[in-house]
């Protein structure tokens, strides 16, 4: 029936009108973007893969960036690193110059630098000398010989316990100088006394259990990482871990942020990233204690986390982006970052603000206690892996899945995953990084 109602000529006219309209709209939008897109813009576009929960993003916009006098800032945070990297790369390759500032973790910049040009930030770091960034952080900001980002935020991984758990602490144990053996005895006693496993680890796909192995278990038990991956010390570490896993809440594979099971009471003692524990400490500072990760036979392995600010080479707002970096590293802004976002400034202990909320202050003290502990072994974040970073993490997740979840034999699992690890390092041509001793060529899995 339709063809009787609308003639062919009518349809063609309609089509022509639609095409004309689309062309006109295109022209108008081109004029619009031409007017606003050329040269610098008063609005800065700032993308990050940190501060991505609703509360964090709201605090970032309403309490941190609102004080910036150099123009308006559009802040967008991604909960997914892949999406974030895809967006930054797409923006940069489109060449529109619409992206002015990137906030990410050190590893993100290593991955980004392999795909798009990032601006050399030596001049900014020079201008911000009074911020007193520790040399260790500046070293991490150097990618392929040049500073690619300015240190912005730091954190580390900590332990949190419900005060009810302290009654089950083995005799002679002090939470601030806990050993892994004492942690196991503690978890076993809790399970025995309460009838359910009350130790928890963030083992869901969004959880950070891979960092537990990379920065904590391996360095503490073996003194190394890649060079010790399948060593005898590593085998005994995994044997220990299986005992600990037997008294760990079996719902742990669904935990991403340990603050949630801590607050609900499903878990009494947990290890996680400081930011992912802060809700428990902020909301109920009287019910929880926070303390450094335990020590193993080789010392207290720990992994500092460093986030930074970078400017893509394509940005057309470099001067304003630089002034935003300067603003974000001011001491007052950094102390807002601590109270609102639970991220700490990349400065020495003496520069920490004094009037912090009880839970936040406890976290800050635990981080300081970790770095200052006797026998502390600081792990560098994986260096030189580039696009292989995710494949590297996958080795640790797969090893955990095989040994802990699927009960596979330890030695054969380490042998097969060790071979994968070697091929990852080989593909990336990555030399060893701390705590492994420096290597001349590609790091050799041992």
């Amino acid at each position, binding site marked *: 029936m*339709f*063809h*009787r109602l*609308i003639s*062919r000529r009518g*349809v*063609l006219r309609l*089509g022509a009108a639609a095409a004309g309209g689309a062309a006109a709209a295109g022209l108008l939008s081109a004029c619009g973007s031409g007017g606003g897109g050329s040269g610098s813009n008063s609005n800065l576009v700032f993308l990050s893969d940190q501060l991505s929960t609703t509360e964090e993003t709201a605090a970032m916009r309403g309490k941190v960036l609102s004080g910036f006098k150099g123009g308006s800032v559009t802040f967008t945070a991604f909960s*997914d690193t*892949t*999406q974030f990297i895809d967006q930054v790369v797409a923006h940069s390759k489109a060449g529109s110059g619409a992206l002015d500032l990137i906030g990410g973790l050190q590893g993100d910049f290593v991955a980004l630098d392999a795909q798009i040009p990032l601006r050399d930030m030596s001049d900014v770091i020079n201008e911000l000398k009074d911020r007193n960034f520790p040399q260790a952080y500046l070293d991490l900001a150097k990618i392929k010989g040049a500073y690619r980002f300015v240190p912005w935020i730091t954190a580390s991984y900590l332990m949190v316990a419900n005060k009810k758990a302290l009654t089950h602490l083995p005799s002679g144990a002090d939470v601030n100088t806990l050993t892994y053996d004492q942690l196991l005895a503690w978890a076993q006693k809790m399970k025995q006394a309460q*009838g*359910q496993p009350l130790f928890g680890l963030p*083992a*869901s*796909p969004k*959880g950070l259990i891979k960092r537990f192995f990379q920065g904590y278990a391996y360095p503490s038990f073996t003194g190394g990482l890649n060079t010790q991956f399948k060593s005898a010390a590593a085998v005994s570490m995994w044997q220990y871990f299986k005992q600990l896993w037997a008294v760990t*809440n*079996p*719902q*742990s*594979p*669904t*935990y*991403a942020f340990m603050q949630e099971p801590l607050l*609900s*009471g*499903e878990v009494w003692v947990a290890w996680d990233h400081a930011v992912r524990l802060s809700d428990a400490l902020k909301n109920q500072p009287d019910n929880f204690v926070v303390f450094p990760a335990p020590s193993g036979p080789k010392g207290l392995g720990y992994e500092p986390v460093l986030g930074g600010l970078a400017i893509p080479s394509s940005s057309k707002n470099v001067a304003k982006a630089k002034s935003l970096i300067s603003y974000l590293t001011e001491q007052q802004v950094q102390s807002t970052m601590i109270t609102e976002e639970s991220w700490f400034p990349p400065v020495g202990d003496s520069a920490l603000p004094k009037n912090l909320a009880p839970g936040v202050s406890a976290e800050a003290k635990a981080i300081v206690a970790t770095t200052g502990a006797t026998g502390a072994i600081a792990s560098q974040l994986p260096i030189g892996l580039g*696009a292989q*970073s*995710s*494949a590297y*993490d*996958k080795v640790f*997740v*797969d090893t955990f*899945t*095989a040994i802990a*979840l699927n009960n596979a034999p330890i030695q054969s699992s380490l042998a097969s995953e060790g071979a994968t690890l070697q091929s990852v390092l080989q593909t990336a041509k990555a030399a060893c990084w701390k705590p492994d001793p420096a290597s001349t060529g590609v790091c050799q899995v041992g």
Partner: protein
Amino acid sequence: MSGRTTASVPADLQPPRSSPVRRRRPGWAPYLLLAPSVVYLVVFFVVPLLQGLRLAFTGEDGAWGLATVHELLNDPGFWSSVWNTLIMLAIILPVQLVLALAMSLLVNSKLRGSGFWFYVYMLPLGISELTSGIIWYSIFTQQGWLNSVLQDLGIISHPYIWLSYQHQLLIIATIVVAEAWRSTSIIVIILVGGLQAIPREYSEAADVFYASPWQKLWHVTLPLLRPTLRTALILRTVLAFEVFATVIALAGSSLSVLATKANNAYTQFQEPHLAAAYGILIMLLSLLSTALFLVLLPVRTE
């Protein structure tokens, strides 16, 4: 995919065969009307499909070959994810089919208030898969609503861990419950459409022979509903292969299905080639299951 019936156009609405008005050719109008959906399909289905095929059959170095397929077959947890997907499907399909049939018969019964139930059944359709997963996680988690209710009723003394990695079948059962709640209504819509297209004369004829309600369902309604049931089964199976947010929310890393492996390969481990290979495998399994339903449930054309 459609819930359309095969009922033909009544004779009085058909144009007379020897119409004095000469039939005009439809011209370009049908093509113009089809164009938006064709463009949509090409941009959002054909292009991604070709891109997916290219990714799945090229290696990281861009060379064509079966390297990614080899990687897929050797990916830790690949075979268990295949089994989990099939087990989940084998439980979820009959459960949902029986539920949906009962629900749509209730809606179609013309009893008082049956229309109200139709709207109640449709509520879960407005909720995203991930939100539904999070809601069901808050029900099944150790300190969740289910344990609270069971403890209050005195059925259990300690909270039971429903989502323990040690009990894979129990986790699958929670996923089935969550999925049944979320997506049964899609089948209900299709079946209600099918039921309403069955002419009342068949039921009245059965009444003449004093058929019991059960006999009417078994010998009259179900055979006439067969084409609709087939459509519903195909649609549900294809959608079940794609479920991943519910599985991630309820099972975390305890259990994986093909769709969660594809998602993790892309988002967590940034391996687009492997993720595409999983995607192509899901597509092949969907095509295979569709073909199976078409062969096993043939519909007579009259």
